[in-house]
């Protein structure tokens, strides 16, 4: 019990004094996951909006595949990206395996299905309420989708925050393609796994507290957004 209490006290000291290693690891985690979300958003929003408005053969199959990929295990993504980026792989010439860039690629792949599926639902709901009106006014499919994404920007932000939460909290993919190299590819989740296995509980706990804090703040923000829009809707109804 005293070990846990001592570790927690040391962890809080590290946070309070902005321990250099802690700050570096947290900084890299936020950069990698943030970049992955931006990249994933570009692809995921376009894919989701496109699947909401376009009609083409095989569309249902694509939607089914996208929804299935929502449950994609991060270690599987890590393995696939490893195979792609390893020296013998098709993208081995890029030479980015065991760099933050590889971690960004893996996390981007992980969040694309999430962003695409949720943004598709968002656009479909918008089209159900106002699709005929937009078409009546001359808006084409692409214009309607873009307008609805802009109109539902708070919903889009909520989706992106959810995707960031998934990316920053995953460990399998970044461990495989990043290699958990100190000072280079070590992020919060991989560091927690390593420090716990070494028995260095204070750093692991400090990172755990920060990770929980980041995810908690995101959830709070998402909750405020949802609460705000729900209250607004209720007030305006």
């Amino acid at each position: 019990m005293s070990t846990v209490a001592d570790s927690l006290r040391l962890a809080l000291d590290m946070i309070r004094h902005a321990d250099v290693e802690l700050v570096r690891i947290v900084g890299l985690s936020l950069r990698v996951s943030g970049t992955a979300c931006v990249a994933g958003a570009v692809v995921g929003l376009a894919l989701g909006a496109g699947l909401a408005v376009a009609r083409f053969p095989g569309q249902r199959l694509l939607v089914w595949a996208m929804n299935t990929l929502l449950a994609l295990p991060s270690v599987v993504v890590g393995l696939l990206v490893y195979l792609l980026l390893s020296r013998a792989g098709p993208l081995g010439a890029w030479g980015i395996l065991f760099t933050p860039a590889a971690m960004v690629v893996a996390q981007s792949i992980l969040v694309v299905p999430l962003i695409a599926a949720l943004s598709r639902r968002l656009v479909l709901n918008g089209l159900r309420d106002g699709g005929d009106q937009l078409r009546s006014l001359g808006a084409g499919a692409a214009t309607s989708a873009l307008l609805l994404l802009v109109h539902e920007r708070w919903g889009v932000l909520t989706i992106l925050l959810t995707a960031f939460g998934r990316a920053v909290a995953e460990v399998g993919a970044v461990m495989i393609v990043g290699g958990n190299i100190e000072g280079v590819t070590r992020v919060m989740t991989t560091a927690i796994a390593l420090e716990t296995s070494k028995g260095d509980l204070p750093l692991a706990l400090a990172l755990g507290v920060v990770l929980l804090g980041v995810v908690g703040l995101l959830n709070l923000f998402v909750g405020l957004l949802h609460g705000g829009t729900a209250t607004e809707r209720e007030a305006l109804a």
Partner: protein
Amino acid sequence: MSAAGANPGDGPVSAPLLSLHDAEVRFGGVTALRGVNLTVRRGERLMLVGTNGSGKTTLLRALHGLVPCSRGRREVHALAPQGREPVAAMLFQNPFLLNLSVQANLRLALWLRGLPRAERASRCTDALQRVGLAALARRPARVLSGGQQQRLALARAWALQPDILFLDEPTASLDPSAKREVEALVAEFAGDGVTVVMSTHNLGQAKRLGSHVAYLEDGQLLAALPVERFFNEPLPGAADRFLKGELPFA
């Protein structure tokens, strides 16, 4: 307006704007409209009547081009002497656009039609003044009353300066005073030479606003006549029973 089974020869015949030729509209396994032949002519005020689910809204959407014909075709006639296609606007049962303010409802519509910013602003102001909503320009459209929302939809249509206006039950669930306001605005549209095609359950309204009335049942156009003949002459069986309020629940 002329339709299969109707006499198109009442009064002077104006130029056609839109035609449906043997039009059929299917949604999956359901046929919502079947074998409709109809021509809407310039300056007409065509009222579509019929029971719930008879195909009035589908006919409006087919005429507007929002749903494709599964069979048959829709023809848009060029305006003479302008030589361009008629501009159409539609009022839906949900009158406002997205969760926007009153003025944003108009400006977005005008932006989608490709109008320059200055013209958007002036048309928006004019249209809101015309329907008496200028003071509420910054309000969210959602908080307006039912009558105000319909006036907003009419302002949006006005701003688009349409040649033909489609209205889908614009006075449903409005109180009598709001109903009168909306009817007066629709009459103003018609007075400006805009062709009006409107669905309604209110036969009195059809009589007041219409120059022609069309009766639909089960997706078929059973009668399409000038308003005086529709209300004063014998009609095909189902249409006659509808007028007398004798149709049983389906």
